[in-house]
């Protein structure tokens, strides 16, 4: 094929694989932040306080409808303006964590709202405490509904990590760019990045589907 050089591929592959490690770390760290913060956003919208609900609702909408890459720039550059210097990693994780927290909060909310009202009523009739109702009755039933969305966003956050390259996080895309500008060869590095992404995201998506079915079955909901 057009000037495709295998020797160059073997030369750059170790660097790209090392960078893939950074990409995975970034994705998992960001997802961890998003899972916790997302739960905070979701539960904040279920408190009796109307103002808190409204403010969090609007914040979630705002985060969801503005570009992640712009949020990354915003967090990275606004700190220094006020004398706070954040490293690329810290601001990148904050931005991606916050962005996906907004998505996950919607997934959690959807899951919780899909639990029939009768389940809340039965819990009340049995005098279960609010915490017990959430953790033992509602969340186990919300989980199977939420898992599909949670899995999609795990793959999603992984695919969004290349945006971290814009502030200099040394993940896969950043490394491919560096290789390209050093060697003036873009065909191999950019193609390999695409292949690596496919090689990780397709099996992950498949594993998530298997896991989802398992959880459903283990909770006795076929």
């Amino acid at each position: 094929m057009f000037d495709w050089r295998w020797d160059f591929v073997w030369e750059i592959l170790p660097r790209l694989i090392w960078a893939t490690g950074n990409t995975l770390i970034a994705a998992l760290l960001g997802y961890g932040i998003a899972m916790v913060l997302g739960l905070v956003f979701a539960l904040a919208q279920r408190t009796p306080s109307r103002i808190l609900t409204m403010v969090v609702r609007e914040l979630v909408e705002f985060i969801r409808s503005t570009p992640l890459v712009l949020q990354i720039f915003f967090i990275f550059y606004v700190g220094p303006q006020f004398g706070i210097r954040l490293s690329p990693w810290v601001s990148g994780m904050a931005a991606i964590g916050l962005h996906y927290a907004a998505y996950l909060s919607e997934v959690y909310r959807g899951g919780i709202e899909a639990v029939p009202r009768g389940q809340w009523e039965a819990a009340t009739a049995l005098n279960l405490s609010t915490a017990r109702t959430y953790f033992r009755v509602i969340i186990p039933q919300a989980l199977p509904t939420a898992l599909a969305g949670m899995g999609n966003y795990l793959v999603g956050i992984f695919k969004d990590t290349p945006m971290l390259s814009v502030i200099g996080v040394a993940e896969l895309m950043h490394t491919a760019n560096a290789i390209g500008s050093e060697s003036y060869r873009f065909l191999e590095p950019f193609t390999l990045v695409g292949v690596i992404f496919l090689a990780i995201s397709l099996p992950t998506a498949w594993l998530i589907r298997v896991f989802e079915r398992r959880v459903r079955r283990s909770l006795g909901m076929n």
Partner: protein
Amino acid sequence: MSYIEFLTTYGPRLMTGTLITIALTVLAGLLAVAIAFAAALMKLSPSMVVRGIATTYIEIFRGTSLLVQLYWIFFVLPLFGITLEKFTAGYITVGMNLGAYGAELVRGAIKSVPRGQWEAALALNMSPAKRMIRIILPQAIVVMLPPWGNLFIELLKGTALVSLIAVADLMFQAKQINGSTFLSAQSFGTALIIYYIVARFGITPSMRWLERRSLRMLGRG
């Protein structure tokens, strides 16, 4: 520099950028819808080859990143003799990417139309094309419109990446202004607010309007 001064100085540039962003969104949106319908119908085809082509397309574009695709199309495609101007490369990539996601929406919506509708159309001896266009799609569109609303917002957000290949969209202008003034909160913050306004007061209401219209067409309004 007060915020008002900032706006009067740099407002026009941000506005120009916004217009480019909107143009990219509209063009990429049209392309995404066309690709989504084509790929979804291909995936429902009886021919394995046709289904295979659609599946490969969808999996490649959903399995890799938009940014990776953008760089590939802009930097690598010229090596194969296909050189696209950056604006064109920008909206085509965004459209192709979101089209792959849209294909799954279209397919899901078509499949959600009850079996009885297919059978009734068959019993009336309608041709396959007539069945799809006259009976199935009108019902499927009502189902798919709400998720398309979300997808168009993703698409708007996706256009911000084309600033990285130097298309002078809103994101690009914000970055340029930040670079010359170091007023990061003002430049990036204003751009965030503009994106939000376009999504919340442009895309969302138009989709709601389309949803209402399509419901009325089905007599459920």
